[in-house]
């Protein structure tokens, strides 16, 4: 079919940050098909240079409000490694609890407010209030619960206050933990069950497109890796976090203020679907049953199903939060001060899973504990090449459809990745001269 079609979706809505989808088809030939990233860059490298290790995470948190907890955790891990700061078991447990809370809140925001309007055939979640009030109220209740975990443990869910290198400036009360545990059981579990039902009922709105790709995430032998682990590629297996540059290979493309990445093939995917594909065996029986109810196959190559994998993770995060609180309460909260006495000054890498995928921070510090060089590789940047390749496969498959349907399916595809464009351009990892 010799169709000519020009699509230019400017400032795509219901994503974090600014991006355009551009498609040009001439006489049936796909000439251009890409996600342009047009967000203003923010020059974090220039800001970090010379700052004290007490301030690094405060600054990098502001790369992205949506992913602020993840940036803090990756940042703290990198700083602690560079300065030789050990952290306690209690600190690790509390950080894992924070990650569960942040993943839950981010996934809920994406599932209900950014992706669901497409499934329900509306333009925004607020329009669902008259017809599906209980769904909207449930979404808000789940987000509140997730944010309350952040507020209690870290002082504030957006740009957390208490997590610092070596530990926490203030610890939560046991009574607060008990209260939030009760809500996780009494509201969280029934609400996530209802979420599964809601999404199961709209699964026929999820396009049936597939494209197998390389999936990269953290992986850990004992748990569904979110806080820590080795880097794992579905193509090449496990690699040490120290090899993160070989696993990401950033390159500049003309249509994006954010760099692209690739590893074993032309592109790879990170995020909930990649974690699911690589690590589903570490999920509990009941989380796996949830996946089954949502038709999520153990190896799923449909990028639109990323949103569904996020639902399974919501279930996991609630279950895991309850378990973490139980072990914290069993041990009793100890009044520990953060360990902030460096034992060396050098380089450190921190890798952690944030809702949109694997995030890397690397710093080098001088002998006064000030930053010499910094490098951050953000999940959305890693997904951009994969999104372009998905679009290039998808467009020819739906080329006979009306223009609006093509546009809508492309928008839904980009949204399914839950791109955080804010994040991806807010740091471009070039090293300082001498770094």
């Amino acid at each position, binding site marked *: 079919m010799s169709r000519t079609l020009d699509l230019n979706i400017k*400032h795509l*809505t*219901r*994503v*974090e*940050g600014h991006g355009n989808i551009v498609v040009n088809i001439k006489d049936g030939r796909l000439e251009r098909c890409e996600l342009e990233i047009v967000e*203003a*860059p*923010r*020059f974090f*490298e*220039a*800001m970090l240079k010379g700052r004290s290790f007490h*301030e690094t995470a*405060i*600054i990098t948190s*502001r*790369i*992205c*409000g*949506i992913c*602020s907890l993840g940036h803090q955790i990756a940042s703290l891990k990198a700083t602690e490694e560079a300065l030789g700061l050990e952290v306690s078991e209690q600190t690790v447990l509390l950080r894992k609890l924070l990650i569960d809370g942040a993943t839950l809140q981010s996934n809920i*925001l994406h599932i209900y*407010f*950014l992706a669901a309007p497409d499934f329900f055939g509306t*333009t*925004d*979640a*607020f329009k669902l*209030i008259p017809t599906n009030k209980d769904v*909207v*109220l449930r979404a*808000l*209740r789940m*987000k*509140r619960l997730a*944010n309350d975990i952040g507020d209690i443990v870290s*002082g*504030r*869910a*957006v*740009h957390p*206050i*208490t997590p*610092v290198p070596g530990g926490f*400036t*203030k610890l939560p009360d046991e009574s607060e933990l008990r209260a939030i545990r009760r809500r996780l059981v009494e509201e969280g579990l029934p609400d996530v069950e209802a979420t599964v039902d809601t999404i199961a009922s709209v699964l026929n709105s999820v396009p049936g497109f597939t494209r197998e790709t390389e999936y990269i995430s953290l992986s850990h032998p004992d748990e569904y890796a979110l806080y820590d682990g080795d880097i794992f590629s579905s193509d090449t297996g496990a690699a040490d976090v120290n090899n993160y540059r070989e696993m990401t290979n950033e390159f*500049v493309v003309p249509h994006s*203020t954010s760099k692209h990445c690739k590893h074993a093939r032309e592109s790879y995917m990170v995020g909930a679907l990649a974690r699911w594909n690589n690590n589903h065996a570490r999920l509990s029986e009941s989380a796996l049953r949830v996946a089954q109810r949502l038709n999520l196959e153990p190896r799923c190559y449909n990028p639109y199903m990323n949103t569904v994998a996020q639902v399974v993770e919501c279930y996991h995060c609630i279950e895991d939060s309850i378990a973490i609180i139980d072990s914290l309460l069993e041990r009793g909260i100890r009044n520990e001060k953060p360990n902030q006495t460096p034992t060396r000054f050098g380089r450190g890498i921190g890798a952690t899973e944030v809702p949109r995928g694997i995030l890397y921070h690397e710093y080098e510090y001088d002998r006064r504990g000030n930053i010499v060089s910094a490098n951050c590789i953000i999940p959305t940047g890693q997904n951009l090449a994969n999104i372009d390749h998905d679009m290039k496969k998808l467009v020819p498959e739906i080329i006979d459809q009306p223009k609006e349907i093509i546009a809508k399916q492309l928008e839904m595809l980009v949204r399914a990745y839950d791109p955080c464009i*804010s994040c991806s351009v*807010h740091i*471009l990892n*070039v090293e*300082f*001269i001498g770094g």
Partner: protein
Amino acid sequence: MKSDQIKPNKPKIAFFDFTSCEGCQLNKLNLENELPDILRHVELVEFREAMDDKADYYDIAFIEGSLSTPSCINRIHDIRRRSNILVALGACATIGGINSMKNLQPIETVRETVYGEEKYRFPTLPAIPVSAVVKVDYEIRGCPMSIPEFLRVLKALLMGKAPNLPDSAVCVECKLRENECLYDRGIVCLGPVTVGGCEAICPSFGQFCTGCRGLVPNPNKDAMLDILTQHGLSLEDAQKRFLLFNSYNIESKSIT
């Protein structure tokens, strides 16, 4: 705000983001308990992060982020022209915030550091607050902006009143909460020179104040200097910390 009736002419509200981390916008979606109630009283006409719609006129426009590219400058003029009341949200929009730290280095160096050879590919300017370019009616400070303050301001504006915004220092609120002063632990805290209204949230959680709400109108320089010297800390320590969020503010170069 308890009536269930839908008013025929609800005020049109819009949110816009400029160079920012989108944390302030996200904070509004974090008003989970209040959102349904708010939505009964206003018509949300533009909020790119959460909806598809666009509009031509706004009763109240909320602006997040600093201005840092030529297109930001054009866009803010356009929004101002179409807005009755314009409110700046968060440190980026009110004082330049963390973005303005890049202003401390020559713009050529900043470009080269990030883009190398390609330094002129993307136009960039020093990061400036909204009030440096257009008239701002009200400012809600903080990084992120404080949620209770946002609600207070919104309610006042919807009732046609001028909102009350604080101008005393963070220390005042901190002392009311009977926190242990961080200076006693040898830590530089910017509470004495920073505008309050956040209920001293950071020192209350054991962390120093980073100055995210900006400099108080008449900072007591001598008192600040006294505190610093008493605790064996230098002016440079405090000034360097102050630049985290306040690099735009020229006064910041002489807080003490």
